């Protein structure tokens, strides 16, 4: 494609609509229009100018607004479909793998669930095609913005004061008529008062205000790009952590994904509203709905091991903080936040037994077995003792005569013991589970009688770290600045030209808020005695309306 040479002699890049220098319309289509197309100042979108190599073709594809809008529509539709059924990460399955998830969708949602899972919609937002689409949108944003911003910036930076008559009279606000000789001086004075930047050149004047409003869309695209890159970083290891930690009272645990940090739970508390005293106010409500939780709290101690310390070596760890984690009041350290999320109440922690004579029920002493730290032997004094031979926290039956445990959690503790008393110095073997005693080696004289149990609670904590938040915040802020810049400020311009014989040409343009522009112009007109202007757009519309009416009338007459 060749450059377009304007009548004024200026060479314009191909695709230009209005001459960069004088403003004459360069295309026939444009020439035939009553009003000039002022979008992007009539400059050529850069990509239109060259279309040669493959790179140029790809570039041009993304430069198109139609393509951009197309991508947005596809994204919107896809994102909407992803909300029809819950995403896999929010689905509750006991064991999380592909098979259980597939079964879950099939069981709960039937055919639709099967199809949904089959199409991969259960994990859509992290699927490669969805990310690709977002990426394509980012490319489109960047390429389309660059292609439009650069020529617009250049054109506005190099704009001429003197424009061709045909440019002026194709502006929406236009006037032509006699005016006094000092019209330029007076207009300049008033325009400056109205905070316009005024440039004079020979017999012409250009007044401009709020040009930065034109950068609004590009600023807000920059914000979007920053936002998207923040979202992208979430998937990079180390930027985003979301882990669960179950911790029982008295336990010290390594914090997942936070190397070198340990958490000890001292106490878990759940409080409910009592409806008494200060809370009498809530009595009616409580009667109606039952128990209402007031507080979930885990009192914790945070430890850190020295930097050179290895996993497993916890003897050198130092206490960092002692705090209470409550709902919405997380423990914060080193960019991490630990939230109170869940709890389990009353897990067995210790059990107390009496060693009793089965016939007389006489007690020979009491022993307490700490389930966290069972001991080999418990001395009851007076020559009696109980040896612990085996402990099975979650007794599930015998296999080859050996007691089995299903889990490490004391849901159904079983104890294999040998009891010694002065009367039975050889010892008697007994196997004890809750509400049952088995005497594997024959009838015993003594037994352990369950007395009481101590319990403890477990806290479910969530560990979060999100280093992308500041990036997302910045992106959002820039986006909003861009929106405000484009929406609440207007780029207003006036061109005034003094012709020979006292005639004056006047044209005005703004990217939005024509009412404001006219108000400014009214003040200048009055002060500098400018010719009366017309809003050509309104004229056109009026004429069209009139034509329509006449046509209707004509049709009716026929």
């Amino acid at each position, binding site marked *: 494609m060749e450059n377009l040479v304007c009548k004024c002699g200026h060479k314009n890049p191909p695709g230009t609509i209005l001459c960069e220098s004088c403003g004459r319309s360069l295309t026939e289509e444009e020439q035939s229009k009553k009003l000039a197309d002022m979008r992007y100042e009539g400059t050529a979108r850069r990509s239109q100018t060259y279309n040669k190599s493959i790179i140029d073709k790809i570039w041009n594809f993304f430069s198109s607004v139609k393509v951009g809008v197309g991508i947005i529509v596809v994204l919107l539709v896809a994102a909407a479909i992803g909300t029809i059924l819950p995403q896999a990460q929010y689905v509750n399955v006991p064991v999380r793998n592909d098979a259980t998830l597939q079964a879950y969708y099939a069981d709960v949602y039937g055919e639709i669930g099967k199809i949904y899972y089959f199409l991969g919609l259960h994990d859509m937002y992290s699927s490669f095609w969805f990310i690709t689409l977002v990426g394509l949108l980012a490319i489109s944003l960047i390429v389309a913005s660059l292609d439009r911003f650069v020529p617009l910036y250049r054109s506005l930076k190099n704009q001429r004061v003197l424009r061709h008559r045909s440019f002026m009279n194709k502006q929406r606000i236009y006037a032509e008529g006699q005016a006094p000789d000092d019209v330029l001086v007076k207009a300049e004075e008033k325009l400056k008062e109205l905070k316009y930047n005024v440039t004079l050149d020979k017999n012409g004047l250009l007044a401009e205000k709020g040009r930065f409003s034109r950068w609004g869309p590009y600023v807000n695209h920059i914000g979007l790009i920053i936002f998207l890159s923040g979202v992208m970083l979430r*998937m990079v290891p180390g930027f985003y952590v979301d882990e669960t930690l179950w911790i029982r009272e008295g336990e010290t645990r390594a914090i997942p994904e936070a190397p070198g940090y*340990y958490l000890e739970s001292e106490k878990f508390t759940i409080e409910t509203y009592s409806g008494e005293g200060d809370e009498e106010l809530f009595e009616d409500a409580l009667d109606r709905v039952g128990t209402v939780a007031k507080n979930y709290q885990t009192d914790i101690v945070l430890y850190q091991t020295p930097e050179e310390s290895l996993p497993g070596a916890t003897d050198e760890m130092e206490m960092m903080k002692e705090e209470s984690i409550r709902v919405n009041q997380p423990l914060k350290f080193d960019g991490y936040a630990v939230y109170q999320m869940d709890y389990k109440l009353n897990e067995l922690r210790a059990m107390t037994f009496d060693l009793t004579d089965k016939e007389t029920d006489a007690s020979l002493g009491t022993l307490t077995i700490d389930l966290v730290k069972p001991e080999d032997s418990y001395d009851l004094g007076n020559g009696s003792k109980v040896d612990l031979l085996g402990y099975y926290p979650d007794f599930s039956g015998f296999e080859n005569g050996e007691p089995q445990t299903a889990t490490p959690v004391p849901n159904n503790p079983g104890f294999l013991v040998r009891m010694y008393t002065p009367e039975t110095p050889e010892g008697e073997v007994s196997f004890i589970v809750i509400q049952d005693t088995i005497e594997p080696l024959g009838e015993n004289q003594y037994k352990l009688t369950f007395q009481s149990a101590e319990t403890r609670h477990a806290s479910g904590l969530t560990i979060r770290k999100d280093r992308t938040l500041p990036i997302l915040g910045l992106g959002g802020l820039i986006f909003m600045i861009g929106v405000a810049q484009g929406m609440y400020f207007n780029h207003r311009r006036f061109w005034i030209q003094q012709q020979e014989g006292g005639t004056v040409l006047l044209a005005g343009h703004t990217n939005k808020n024509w009412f404001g522009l006219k108000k400014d112009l009214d003040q200048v007109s009055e002060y500098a005695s400018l010719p009366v202007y017309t809003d050509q757009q309104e004229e056109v519309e009026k004429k069209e309306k009139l034509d329509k009416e006449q046509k209707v009338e004509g049709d009716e007459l026929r």
Partner: protein
Amino acid sequence: MAEQKANKSNKKRNRAIMRSAILSLLVIAIGYTIYNSVTAEDVEVLKAGDKAPDFALLDMEGNSHKLSDYEGEGVFLNFWGTWCAPCVKEMPAMDRQFQEYEDQGVNVLAVNIAQSDFEVQSFVDRFGLSFPVAIDKSKSVMTAYNIRPLPTTVLVNPEGEIQRIVTGEMTEEDIKGFMEEIRPQ
């Protein structure tokens, strides 16, 4: 005129470079994101070829075992619990094979997941285990190795790299083969 032409072709070249650079940068960014999202679940999990994370644990006899001290030798790292039936089943076989390979530079360390001393000690006594057994009280080694199902066995070669990660029960044959794999040459 010639100068103008040269200027023009220069401009064209710059344009091509600029556009290729921007496009390839964006494509790389997208590719990286997809890579991260696809591998998101595997990233935390160690795999064969990775450096085995160092740790230090005390065994039941009070001896400290630091993984990096065993460089030059193979380490057969078995994570287990008394409630896990396959773990229990493979222990005697591991012990037999340990006695075979002990002199050939293969160490076995059985890491119990946060059970009580009593449970672990009575288990060791019951099977008469001859290799060191340690308890990961704070689950920090388990976290560092991202151990999910039990049993999991991590084979560390003499270079200190992970040779293989085995989840689930192993036969004696398997154990022998694995020890052979990490035996220093």
